[in-house]
């Protein structure tokens, strides 16, 4: 059964390769000198950084966690965003407590 043997060998080789890659990834994640998490955290703490420097196109994409709640919708609520990155960032902040209230006619 030459084809079966070849197929089993091929699948085993692929599985082993994937396992080696995943094991290497897990080892790298656990290795402080590779991930440099401590150094990055020290940098964040020293500079007081709040956001990742990924999208520098607009202030609310550069600092999504610090942006005004309405900035992505500057034209009107629900407006399409000007910046492509805005479509990646889903609104994630909890709604602030409202101070708005209405009273019906005659209500005290």
């Amino acid at each position, binding site marked *: 059964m030459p084809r079966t043997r070849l197929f089993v060998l091929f699948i085993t080789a*692929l599985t082993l390769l994937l396992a080696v890659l995943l094991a290497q990834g897990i080892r790298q994640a656990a290795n402080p000198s590779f991930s440099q998490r401590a150094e990055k955290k020290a940098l964040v703490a020293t500079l007081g950084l709040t956001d990742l420097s990924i999208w520098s196109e607009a202030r609310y994409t550069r600092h999504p966690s610090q942006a005004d709640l309405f900035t992505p919708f500057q034209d009107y609520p629900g407006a399409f965003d000007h910046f492509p990155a805005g479509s990646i960032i889903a609104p994630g902040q909890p709604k602030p407590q409202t101070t708005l209230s209405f009273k019906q006619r005659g209500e005290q």
Partner: protein
Amino acid sequence: MARRLNILEHALSSLLRRKQKNLAIIVVYTLTVATIASVLFLTQSLRSEAVNVLAAAPDIVVQRLAAGRHDLIPIADAEQIRRMPGVGKVEPRVWGYYYDSLKKVNFTLMGVKDSPTNLPLLQGTFPANNEQCTLGKGIAEAYGVTIGDSLVLVDSSNSSKLYQVSGLFIADSELLTNDLILLQEAELRRFFKLPDGRATDLAVEVYNQREVATLAKKIKLALPDSRPIGKTEILHTYDTVFNWRSGIMLTLFASALIAFCILAWDKATGISADEKREIGILKAIGWDTNDVLLLKFWEGLAISLTAFLLGAIIAYLHVFFYGAGLLAPVLQGWSVLFPQFNLTPAIDLYQLFVLALLTIVPYIACTIVPAWKTAVTDPDSVMRS
């Protein structure tokens, strides 16, 4: 066991007889799995990086809102916050944005007061005086500057100011400092014409992390025009941004899934005349329905397992060895300065297992079901049709 292996041998021969068609299926299937797995690997790693690194962010950032917009906050408010029980240091932060119309680049300018020694991920030093600056790697590369060179910025009075580059953040910090320019705080105030006694926001240290939400409420109560942003909100933002269910990641994910569904649907609804005749012949020479189904199971498994393993390997190499080069333009948007993704792998075996389950099982089912329909039909009528 020998019987099953014989059927597997026959299944492989059958696949090789139609090698062009099956190769095309494997290529499409592999690309689909590679796309979905790349999205999963990339989002998982970015989220893990953000959550781990930003855990050192200020516990609370207090902004001031004026007429519904972010405004400068009086530094005197810091003292009021500092007096609250449970609050440690309250540091005014001075920072802002600078747009360079030549390269159409936005920078983040940040003021620093002290020059910490032995700061990691920094080559050179912090700005020691008003004539110096420290740059992120993205800016240094965009303008081709290095330590000792000068950077010219135009301040709020429209005067050019020359800053000598005293330090550069190295590539490993790119995800945090790519577009960052550090200046002395006093110089940054002059540059932006910021009034003394005001800061962009206040970074508040809280001793007990469980008190952050309570203190944020207290700050809001004491300073009604303020907007306290807790660290959990910062982390939640990035958790949402890099969640595979949000935004463009979902679009990519959904497109790949739909492509896979079309592939599976085509497989499920269209069994070729050759395949039908083959099943009819097998039945006529004495194979029973179970054998035919086992044959089709092996065929489906051989294709789907090969495509899944190849797709997962390609996705891993793409994201962690080649910096997600094909996904980065999708993420980049209009950002001119975009960091290279040198990511620390964050592997979620559960996600990989679910991906395997979602791609291998439906494909095998789609291979078996039409074959079963043919296999239970009279062999003579199958061959004649």
